[in-house]
């Protein structure tokens, strides 16, 4: 058998996955500036007016005046930044935002520092985000410090809308201190003043193009490469590609996993959560399948004499967004209206991203009360990995099913048991009972899709 070895497979699938990920990232969405979908959406909006993205900046009084105001340094002594009246779409909701002054002076000590930053609109009002490090040597020509790039990464949460850009450089106690403020570009398109015929003739084509780009699957250009790997594996291993590499415990890169899924309509087998022992918490992997699949538990240790009961919290494909700002300690949540939250209660998983790090929290819910716009529920938290706020229109809420699987006494290493029969896109939590000391400390499982 001259089957490809895992080292070459890794190099190949990484390269192919990277190639596909490049195309997927470029395709983007309406909320990601610079992407294909974002730009095609803007072409349509130029013709129609308005905004489609859930997040974006609009002129302050956009109903009467589509001109963005001017940000400025209002007071060169105390370095007060003036930000004019704006509006911001956050999660599809419009927030009017009155003009404001932000004091930079208190942010600086005697250090010679330079920052780029952004004034953003969040749920609680204007927020100033400054990059932690400074960009540009403060020892250079001070007059050129305003050339500092806006682009350096600044940790702006995805649920805040940048309003104005700020550059500050130098020692605020020194006359060479420089500060510049500039408004961000409006995301809101005013309605065109062109004739009806212009809209009539062109809107449908642009809208059709946008619809096509929203669902564009570019995996077809790489189909032959993926199929070659599949054919080779079947030919040399005598086993289907997915099955063979699953038995080898091989974990494909996310990029290749997405490529495979988009070509074949089903995911490769992926480890979704690990339970290192019955006495430890599971390892959160933040893995969601590209297409839901049925789950199974793999015993990755020897099994003791007792039956182990595994409670797997499978992430269903039904989801919604948190509707209003929620502090988890309140043990209540308001979600977007949906059809899957049950009056009799059930389980939810919350996923949020803070500073690019994903966090999950699992809860049972009950006491459902709903309106046309939202659903209120009482929570009973099961996990407490994350204690941050649930952010409206940003924090995802998933329907979770608690599925129980049993592992019989004396089960062999790598024994596999089904976890229910429903398809899930991930695992939010695992709890296990039944092991006896000392084997309970070493009995371990991995949950994966079949």
């Amino acid at each position: 058998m001259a089957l490809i070895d895992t080292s070459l497979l890794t190099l190949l699938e990484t390269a192919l996955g990277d190639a596909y990920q490049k195309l997927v990232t470029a395709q983007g969405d309406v909320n990601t500036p610079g992407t294909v979908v974002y730009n095609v959406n803007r072409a349509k909006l130029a013709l129609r007016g308005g905004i489609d993205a859930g997040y974006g900046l609009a002129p302050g009084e956009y109903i009467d005046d589509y001109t963005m105001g001017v940000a400025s340094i209002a007071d060169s002594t105390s370095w007060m930044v003036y930000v004019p009246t704006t509006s911001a779409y956050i999660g599809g909701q419009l927030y009017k935002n009155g003009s404001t002054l932000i004091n930079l002076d208190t942010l600086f000590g005697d250090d010679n520092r330079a920052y780029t930053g952004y004034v953003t609109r969040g749920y609680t009002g204007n927020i100033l985000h400054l990059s932690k490090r400074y960009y540009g040597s403060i020892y250079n020509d001070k007059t050129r410090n305003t050339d500092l790039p806006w682009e350096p990464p600044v940790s702006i949460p995805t649920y805040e809308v940048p309003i104005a850009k700020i550059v500050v450089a130098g020692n605020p106690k020194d006359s060479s201190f420089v500060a510049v403020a500039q408004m961000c570009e409006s995301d809101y398109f005013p309605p065109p003043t062109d004739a009806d015929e212009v809209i009539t003739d062109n809107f449908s084509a642009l809208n059709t193009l946008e619809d096509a780009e929203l669902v564009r699957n570019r995996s077809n250009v790489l189909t032959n490469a993926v199929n070659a790997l599949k054919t080779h594996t079947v030919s040399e291993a005598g086993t289907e590609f997915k099955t063979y590499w699953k038995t080898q415990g091989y974990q494909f890169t996310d990029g290749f996993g997405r490529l495979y899924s988009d070509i074949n309509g089903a995911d490769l087998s992926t480890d979704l959560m690990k339970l290192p022992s019955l006495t430890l918490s599971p390892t959160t992997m933040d893995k969601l399948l590209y297409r839901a699949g049925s789950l199974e538990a793999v015993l990755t240790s020897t099994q003791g004499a007792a039956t182990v009961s595994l409670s797997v919290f499978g992430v269903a494909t039904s989801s919604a967004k948190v509707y209003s700002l929620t502090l988890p300690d309140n043990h209540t949540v308001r979600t977007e209206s949906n059809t899957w939250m049950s009056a009799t209660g059930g389980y939810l998983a919350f996923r949020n991203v803070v500073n690019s790090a994903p966090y999950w929290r699992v809860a049972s819910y009950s006491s459902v009360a709903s309106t046309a716009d939202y659903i209120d529920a009482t929570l009973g938290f099961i996990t407490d990995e994350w204690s941050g706020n649930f952010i409206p229109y940003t924090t995802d809420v998933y329907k979770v099913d608690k599925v129980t699987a049993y592992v019989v006494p004396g089960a062999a290493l790598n024994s596999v048991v089904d976890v229910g029969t429903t398809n899930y896109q991930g695992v939010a939590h695992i709890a296990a009972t039944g092991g006896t000391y000392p084997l309970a400390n070493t009995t371990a499982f991995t949950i994966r899709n079949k």
Partner: protein
Amino acid sequence: MATSKVISSELLTKIETALGSAYATLLDAVGSQSAVGTALYNVTKAKLLVRGGHDLDYGVKTTGTPPTYSIEPLGVTGNFYVPTTTLYFGGIEKVLAGVTVAATGAVIATPPYNSCRYGVYVYALDCSTPDTETITVNVVPSTTSNLIMTALVSGDDVPSFSELFPANYKPSTVPTTAVLLAKLRCGREIPTTSDISLDETRLAFYEGSNTDEIVDVIFSGINDSEDALLATNFGSQYTQTLTTLESHVRTRSGVAFKDYWKQQNYRFTDNFRRLWSDAKNAELSTDFGVVYPHAGSGNTTYSGRLCYKPTAIEAALPDASSTGISMSAFLYNTASYSTVLKYRANVTEGTGPIYLKDAITSWPTMGYLAINGRCLETGFSAGSGHELMLVGSYDRSSSATIVTFQRLPHYVNNVFDPWRSEVLCVDKYDVAFTAGSPSGSVMAIGSTNYNGVAYATVSQGIGTLGVLLRSK
């Protein structure tokens, strides 16, 4: 209420800019076999991992699978060691002997700058002449000037590579003819191996698999995908939208889309022109430049602007001319008449040889050519390179690879680096406007299609608006 039923230029600008940007984003992601990190680069890499060898004319020749190329820093402040490395320049292997470069010290060694953290690119450049083989290793800051270098004060985190090498602030001094060896974080502290990144280094050679069964099946599949990426016209996905826009203008104005906007003196973005060219297989009218009267020997327009599709070219008078005007225009020939320099070309006022990679036997025995690439103006230091297109006359009667060349008088002396300094065949045409030509007069230049305008001169005495060169 608007009276015109044709889309306004203001609205058109918004739409064509957005559509052009969308297309440019996609094409950038598809990339090319030589653009590190793009889809095509990665697919080609996958193919070479199976097949072995190299497809790229530029890059680092690695050994072993996976590639084990590395750069070892010395534990001496400011020094950076590049071991003996084989490189590809223009598809030819050249060995770079081990060398230590003053990576940190050469850029900023003195206080207070040495308290900063910043990034540098380390690259190799082929400066060989027919007499001497020379490859230099150079260092430039990661940003266009030291004013945007990232500094770090005590207690702050070490900046990431993405912070020190911001994508939108590439240094202008890394030559396009160079082979990038590494990115390095330096300053303030002695670099360690964790301060070296090869993620933008173009690895150009792979050992490949020695197993028949792997090459037999997997190679052809990946090769097919590479071919598919190379051949796919992504512009076709926009054809219907552009056809609708085209129909709208023609229906509402009675004039063809291209002609209507040419009449309006509307200038499309380059991104949209490329989209239109790919989606509609046609070129929109574009300006190449205006030739102005100029005291002295040269009244000239330069243009790096090429068409996406070969097109007819014309000269237009924005202003009436009371006197006769004579113009000489040098147009890029479309017949794939291009090669690259093989050695450094020292272009001076007199005639001298230039060395070409390929024999130009299909070119006319004598004529004109353009050198388009990275050069140093004579007398400037090695770090001051810039991009330039320069036109002159050639004679290949003695040799098709070592041709006699003389620049046109307007240019100053320059030294061009080899391999990526393109050499293109250009055709010279003389046209004349008679005395009393009215504003808007147009004259065709040549009788066939061209890829653009390389150079032009015009006689004295034309109107103050000059002569406009544009595609038809």
